[in-house]
């Protein structure tokens, strides 16, 4: 039998989640997430608001951080550094895709 998936949640800036949801979905502890906030890897929607809320796309950030921590046996600083570099690479890749879309001739092979 084929299950039909109807409940799709967009992981983008239109959806927000709380700190505890972020922890539950990513498998990180609330303290781990606070570390990532301290390092600026995860940025709450409003800095001083309590309880903090986040754009839902940080679920992917937090899951990646969790995976890197486990797979490379990293501490909080190592995770933050790796995530900073990954974010930088992703920005550059996005720029590259945007530029190649503007280049004439065929598809941009996304």
């Amino acid at each position, binding site marked *: 039998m*084929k*299950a*039909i*998936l*109807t*409940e*799709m*949640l*967009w*992981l*983008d800036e*239109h959806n927000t989640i709380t700190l505890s949801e972020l922890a*539950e*979905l990513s*498998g990180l502890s609330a303290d781990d997430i606070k570390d990532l906030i301290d390092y600026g890897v995860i940025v709450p929607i409003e800095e001083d608001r309590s309880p903090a809320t986040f754009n*839902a*796309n940080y*679920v*992917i950030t937090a*899951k*990646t951080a969790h*995976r*890197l921590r486990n*797979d*490379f046996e990293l501490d909080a600083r190592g995770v933050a550094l*790796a995530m900073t570099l*990954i974010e930088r690479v992703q920005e550059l890749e996005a720029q590259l*895709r*945007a530029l*190649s*879309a*503007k280049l*004439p*001739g*065929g*598809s*941009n*092979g*996304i």
Partner: protein
Amino acid sequence: MKYKDYYSVLGIAHTASEAEIKSAYRKLARKYHPDVSKERNAEERFKDIAEAYQTLKDPEKRAAYDQLGKQQPGEEFKPPPDWQQRYSDTRFSFDDIDLADLFAGLRGGGTHRVHAPMAGQDYEAVVHLTLEQAFHGTQVNVDLSMSEYDAQGVMHRVPQVFNARIPKGVTDGQRMRVPGKGGAGLNGGRAGDLYLTIALHPHPLFRVSGHDLYLDLPLAPWEAALGTSIEVPTPAGQVRLKVPAATHAGQQLRLPKRGLPKPHSGAGDLYAMVQIVVPSELTDKERSLFTQLAEDSRFNPRGHFNSGGVK
């Protein structure tokens, strides 16, 4: 169950020390971890590497693995008769599980089995869509191989097919979460989630950047010089586009809201990128008209070469 040679996956000898196992894993993880690697098949390679390391780094699991004896990789085998009682608390049917499931269920060094609620496993899948599917929204099948426990607590590998309704508004790289459709939770824990990543196939006409689309628009020299009105394709069908007189190659003619729809409201734009093209072969008439134009025109496209590069 198929045999996997964990030692050869890590590229180490059967006599390798714990330090050697760790060091081999670290080198391979740096090379193949899907979050940092650009190697082909990094994800599959890393899965094998992590699986091998999870078992070999734990002395008790490593001993259990060594007791399986050496088989040919990929060969079907069953563990020795007393193996299960010695090493495992969970019962398995050995037919439809893989080695990773087997060792994930073992006690492991020092840890004893706890009955705390545990969230189910999250699964990830890439959903490949055409531009048209992304434009209109669509339903696609997502194939997964999931581990499941039956009523007796025996674990099985079960192929699952989901029919995912992809709403309008997605674009390349979009991530979505399908709550509760991952693996079942253990001891009353919540079910895991299914994470989808949208990947768009390249389109023969449109290039994608976020929700904006880019289309090459070839114009004949006289169309670009005189201006014209032409039909251009968009994902929603043909639209009429007015090309102003004196249009240059490289100029972008913007068709607002003719790109991909955005998730909640609005749409990206479509940019027609002007190219000036000439016939590969001229008719006699065309040749004579161009020759006449060349003789009569005082236009110098390279005037700025002699004025220090200022156009």
